[in-house]
């Protein structure tokens, strides 16, 4: 068990910290990324932006909205209960409450909207984009435009992005960093082995995470309390990128790219709540929204036709 750590110790500070400066994002795909643990997801993104420290949130009306936005990121169900339908919190996929480069930071998003999105084939404002997170990632209900929840998240994002130029939609650190395509097609069985060795200690063998005294400690990766089939994390590619940069927790970039692809396939090869854009049948929903190689929805994995769970369950507050 300690084999892993022996490798990390000597190389960690020297090589990885040095690479912050020398590995720009564009060249990453060409570099053979060897497994070792980096301090955080920002390391391989080339990001140089530092968002302001939370202790500097102003103590006034604006600051109150910023703080509410931050609270929603960390404790979504507590601060936006009417819109959250599962046991996830935004921070689960946006490390450090949306402040961390390489973990889809809110500051990287803030300066990139309004933008055209192929997901709904129109130009989306930032609030439109936030609505999608509630509908899919949180398996909930979209907060109305102009509602306190969206105003608070916008205020927090704006505050985090202080000093960044707007319109640079490719700012370093935005989204999850690109990384090498898999050498072998992602595989369920190999993914399961990666999962058992690296993830199950926290997310549990059945993928449902762990709850202590009513609080979710390790969030569910699949099942009724996780993100639904319409969520970004349901794309194997997004999931692989997120996992490579952010998981196992505290050990960024410690998996090989192949391991990240395999375990993403394994995770996204499990059942989860129905896509709210349900077209009446799995086949029709796949044809309209999932007809690409990064979605396993509507395909048979490990003997199960994924998504074959009927119409979406109505959301109750």
């Amino acid at each position: 068990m300690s084999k892993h750590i022996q490798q990390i110790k000597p190389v960690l500070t020297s090589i990885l910290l040095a690479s912050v400066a020398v590995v720009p994002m564009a060249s990453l795909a060409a570099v053979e990324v060897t497994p070792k643990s980096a301090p955080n997801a920002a390391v391989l993104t080339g990001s140089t932006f530092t968002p302001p420290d939370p202790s500097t949130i102003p103590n006034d009306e604006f600051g109150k909205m910023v703080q509410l936005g931050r609270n929603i990121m960390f404790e979504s169900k507590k601060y936006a209960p009417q819109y959250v339908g599962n046991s996830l919190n935004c921070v689960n996929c946006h490390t450090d409450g949306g402040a961390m480069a390489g973990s889809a930071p809110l500051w990287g998003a803030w300066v990139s909207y309004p933008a055209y999105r192929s997901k709904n084939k129109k130009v989306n404002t930032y609030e439109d984009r936030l609505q999608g997170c509630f509908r899919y990632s949180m398996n909930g209900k979209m907060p109305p435009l102009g509602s306190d929840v969206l105003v608070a998240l916008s205020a927090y994002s704006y505050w985090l992005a202080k000093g960044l130029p707007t319109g640079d939609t490719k700012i370093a650190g935005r989204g999850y960093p690109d990384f090498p395509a898999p050498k072998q097609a992602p595989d369920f069985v190999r993914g399961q082995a990666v999962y058992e060795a690296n993830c199950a200690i926290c997310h549990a063998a059945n993928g449902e995470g762990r709850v202590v005294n009513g609080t979710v400690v390790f969030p569910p990766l699949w099942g009724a309390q996780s993100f639904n089939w319409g969520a970004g994390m349901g794309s194997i590619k997004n999931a692989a990128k997120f996992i490579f940069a952010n998981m196992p927790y505290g050990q960024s970039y410690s998996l090989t790219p192949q391991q990240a692809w395999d375990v993403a396939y394994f995770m996204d090869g499990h059942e989860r709540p129905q896509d709210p854009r349900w077209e009446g049948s799995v086949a029709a929903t796949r044809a309209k929204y999932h007809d690409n190689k990064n979605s396993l929805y509507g395909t048979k994995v490990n003997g199960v036709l994924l998504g074959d769970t009927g119409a979406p369950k109505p959301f109750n507050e």
Partner: protein
Amino acid sequence: MFQFRSLSSSRSLFWPACGVILTATSGAVWAAPPPEAASCAACHGAQGEGMAAAHYPRLAGMPADYLAEQLHLFASGQRQNAIMSGMAKPLSAEQIKTLADYYSGLPVTMAAPAQTVPADLKPRGEQLAVYGDWKAGIPACFRCHGPGGVGVAPAFPALTGQSATYLDQQITAWKNGTRSGDPQGLMHTIALRMSDADTKAVTAWLAAQKPEAAVMGKTNQAGGAQ
């Protein structure tokens, strides 16, 4: 002083009632200690509550798998401690399991912490425990050790109800290489990123928090919340 009841074969049946009675008459002990535990009480207390003044850790209510693993690590030398390796080496795997299950099943009965956090350490200590410092690669302690640091079975020990010195010594031991063998190097990785000042601040803060009233191992369950 204490009530001893032999429930060894049907202990689990009594758990639902246990929490209730506990709060009413704190100090009740449920299972008779196995004979192996006789030599442990001198340091870890009659109820596994530890001895904060001497920096002997509490064992009560810790995840059983975690306790068993530590005894194996003391025996193998991956976790180095003169006292405990001497205690652990003679134990058979079966005795280790008996002891781990016994201490894990004991309620957490420590008195309110005697220590308070020095004002200069408080903000940094609390920040690390609740939010971490991601710039330095330190995730929040509570993200892995559970809300309020109550521990998460099977692998994550509780951090409350221990002396600051004990907690500090453990992080320092990982940094010095005298403690290893933790699962996936999860804690070792983080300890290596903690400065001495961070270690001091967070352990002082943790030691001043109230130990939980509930036995975490029994309240933990898999599956989504609510």
